[in-house]
C-alpha cells in the first residue's frame, strides 16, 4: 500500500508538471513563472520547497535520538525566515536578482564575485541534494527491500523530468501542492497516534529519559552548549543563503509583496514544525530502539496502531516523505541548474538549462551512493552552515553597508565558505571525530560565520578603491519602494 502511495505522488508530480507545461511557453515564462503567482501560492510553494526530508523525517529522528537539544533545529529553520524577513527579503526582491550570483554581480559589479557565488551555490545545492537522495533510498528499501540506490535514482529521474518539462511555472504549482500534502501527511497520522496514546493510558517517558533525554543540555553529548549555539547560528543565518529559497522571491511582484510572502511562510512553517517534536517524543516512549535512524515517522503508525488503519497511515506518511524528497530536490535542481547553465555553460538558452539539469542531478546522486550515510538532518545542517558562512555576510553587508568592496566580498566568500566546506568535507568523509575538534567540525558555524564577517569587513576597509562605483544607485534600487519614480539603474539579471 505504501508503494502505491509513492507511485501516486510521483504520478501526481509528473501530471501537475505536464499541466504546467501548457501554461509556460516562452523562455521568460520558463524561468520566472511570469510573476503571476499570488502570495499564498508563493508562500505555500516556498514552504513546500523548504520542507525537505530533513524536516519531514530527520528532525523527529534526531529528537528521538538526542532529546531536547534538537528542538532548536526546527526553531532555527523557522526563525531563519524572521532574520531573512527583516534583513534581506524586500531589498533582495527589489534588486531584481534572480539568483545569488545575480545579486553578487549587480551589487559588487564584479564577475569574479559572481563566479565564486555560483560555485558556492552549486556546492550548497549538491550538499543539500545528496541526503535527499540517500533518504529516498532508505525509505524505498524499507517498504520494498530494493537496494539503497534505487530510491535515489527514482527521485532523481522524476525531478529531472519535471524540471525539464515544466520549468518554474509548473514547479510553483507542484511545490504549493506539496506543502499541503506534507502538512496533511504529518498531521493526520499524528491525530490517530495521540488518540492511541491516550487510549493506551497515556504512558509517560521512562524515568531515566525524563531525567536526561527530556532536559536540554543534559544529554551525553560533549560541548553541548557550543553545539547548541553553533546550531542556532547556522540555522538562523543560513536560511537566507539557500539558493532554492531565494529564487522564489523573484516571483513576488514587488518588495512589499516579498515581505508579506515571508510573513505567510513563517506562519506555514510554524504550523508544520509543531508536529515533528511530538513524533520524537512519542517515538521515545514507543520505539526507543529507533534511535540513530530517520525511521521514527514512518514506523510509529504501524507500531502504535497497526491493522488496516496503521497501513493506511503508513502509506500516507510515506507519500509525504516522497513529496518532501521531490519538492526540495526539484527546487534545488532548478536553482543549481540555473547557475550551471548561466555561469559555467555560458548561456540562458533552454538547451543549456537542460544539460545543466542533468549535471545538477547526477553529481549528488553519485555522492549519495558513494558517501557514508549520516542522519539526513545533520547533513542538511552542514549545508546551512556553509550558507551562513558565505552568503549571509554577502547579503547582509551587501544590502546594508555601502563600503563593502568587491575584493572584501570575494575574500569573505572564499575564506568563510572555504573553511565551512573543509569542515563539512572532513565530517562527511572522515568523521565523526572526538572531543573539541569533533564538536568544532560537526557544527562549524559558530567560528566560520564570525570569521567570514570579519574578513569581509576588514578587507573592504583595506581596499576602499574597490568599492563598486555604482553603489549609490544600487542602494536606491535596493531600498526605495517601487511606487516612487526613481532612476534605479539599468541592470537586469542575465537569466530572464
Amino acid at each position, binding site marked *: 500500500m505504501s508503494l502505491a502511495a509513492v507511485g501516486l505522488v510521483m504520478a501526481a508530480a509528473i501530471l501537475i508538471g505536464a499541466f504546467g507545461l501548457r501554461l509556460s511557453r516562452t523562455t521568460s515564462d520558463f524561468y520566472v513563472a511570469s510573476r503571476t503567482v499570488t502570495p499564498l501560492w508563493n508562500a505555500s510553494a516556498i514552504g513546500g520547497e523548504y520542507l525537505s526530508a530533513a524536516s519531514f523525517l530527520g528532525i523527529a529522528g534526531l529528537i528521538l535520538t538526542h532529546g*531536547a537539544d534538537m528542538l532548536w533545529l526546527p526553531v532555527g529553520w523557522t*526563525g531563519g*525566515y524572521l532574520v531573512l524577513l*527583516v534583513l534581506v527579503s524586500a531589498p533582495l526582491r527589489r534588486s531584481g536578482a534572480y539568483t545569488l550570483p545575480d545579486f553578487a554581480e549587480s551589487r559588487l559589479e564584479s564577475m569574479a564575485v559572481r563566479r565564486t557565488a555560483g560555485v558556492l551555490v552549486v556546492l550548497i545545492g549538491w550538499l543539500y541534494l545528496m541526503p535527499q537522495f540517500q533518504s529516498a533510498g532508505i525509505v524505498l528499501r524499507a517498504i520494498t527491500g530494493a537496494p539503497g540506490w534505487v530510491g535515489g535514482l527514482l527521485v532523481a529521474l522524476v525531478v529531472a523530468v519535471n524540471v525539464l518539462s515544466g520549468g518554474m511555472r509548473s514547479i510553483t504549482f507542484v511545490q504549493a501542492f506539496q506543502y499541503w500534502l506534507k502538512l496533511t501527511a504529518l498531521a493526520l497520522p499524528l491525530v490517530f497516534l495521540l488518540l492511541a496514546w491516550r487510549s493506551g493510558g497515556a504512558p509517560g517517558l521512562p524515568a531515566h529519559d525524563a531525567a536526561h533525554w527530556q*532536559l536540554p*543540555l543534559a544529554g551525553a553529548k560533549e560541548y553541548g552548549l557550543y553545539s547548541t549555539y553553533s546550531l542556532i547560528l547556522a540555522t538562523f543565518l543560513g536560511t537566507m543563503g539557500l539558493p532554492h529559497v531565494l529564487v522564489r522571491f523573484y516571483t513576488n511582484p514587488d518588495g512589499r509583496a516579498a*515581505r508579506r510572502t515571508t510573513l505567510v511562510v*513563517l506562519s506555514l512553517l510554524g*504550523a508544520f514544525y509543531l508536529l515533528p517534536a511530538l513524533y520524537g517524543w512519542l517515538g521515545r516512549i514507543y520505539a526507543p530502539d529507533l534511535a540513530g535512524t530517520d525511521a521514527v515517522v514512518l514506523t510509529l503508525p504501524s507500531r502504535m496502531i497497526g491493522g488496516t488503519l496503521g497501513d493506511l497511515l503508513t502509506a500516507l506518511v510515506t507519500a509525504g516523505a516522497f513529496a518532501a524528497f521531490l519538492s526540495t530536490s526539484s527546487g534545488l535542481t532548478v536553482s543549481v541548474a540555473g547557475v550551471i547553465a548561466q555561469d559555467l555553460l555560458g548561456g540562458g538558452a533552454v538547451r543549456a538549462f537542460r544539460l545543466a539539469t542533468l549535471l545538477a542531478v547526477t553529481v549528488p546522486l553519485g555522492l549519495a551512493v558513494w558517501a557514508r550515510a549520516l542522519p539526513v538532518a545533520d547533513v542538511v545542517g552542514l549545508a546551512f552552515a556553509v550558507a551562513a558562512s558565505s552568503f549571509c555576510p554577502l547579503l547582509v553587508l551587501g544590502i546594508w553597508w555601502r563600503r563593502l568592496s568587491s575584493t572584501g566580498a570575494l575574500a569573505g566568500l572564499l575564506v568563510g565558505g572555504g573553511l565551512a566546506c573543509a569542515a563539512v568535507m572532513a565530517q562527511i568523509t572522515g568523521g565523526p571525530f572526538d572531543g573539541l575538534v569533533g564538536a568544532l567540525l560537526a557544527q562549524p558555524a559558530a567560528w566560520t560565520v564570525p570569521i567570514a564577517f570579519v574578513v569581509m569587513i576588514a578587507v573592504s576597509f583595506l581596499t576602499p578603491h574597490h568599492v563598486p562605483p555604482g553603489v549609490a544607485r544600487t542602494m*536606491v534600487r535596493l531600498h526605495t519602494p517601487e511606487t516612487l519614480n526613481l532612476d534605479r539603474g539599468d541592470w537586469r539579471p542575465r537569466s530572464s
Partner: protein
Amino acid sequence: MKGRVTVTSPRTAAARRPRYPASREIDEQTRLGEVYMRSLLRTQFRLALFVCTVLACVVLGLPLLFLLVPELRAAELAGVPLPWAVLAGLIYPLFVAGAWLYVRQAERNERHFEDLVERQ
C-alpha cells in the same frame, strides 16, 4: 549722498533657487539626495537591528538560562516540561507576531519616505 538704500520691492523671485523635486535630488545623487537615502536606510536598518537584537536575546538567552538555572529545565507549564513548551510550541507564534509587527513598521517607514519625496 550715496548711503544705504531701503529696498522696497521683495526680490524673492530672483533670489529663490529653482526647487527640485526630491526624486530628482536622489536621481542626480546630490548631497540632499544622499541625505534622503541615508535617512531611509538608517530608519530601516535600525528597525531590522532592533528585531534581530530582541530575537538574539531570546534565542541565545534561552540555552544560557537553562544552563544557569537548572530548575527551569525541569519546570512544567500545564503538565509539559518548560523547555518543550517554549521550544516546541510557544516560540512559533512569537516569531509570527514579531514578523507581523516588523512588516507593519517597515511599510510605515516606507510610506513616510514616499510622503517626504513626493511632497514637493
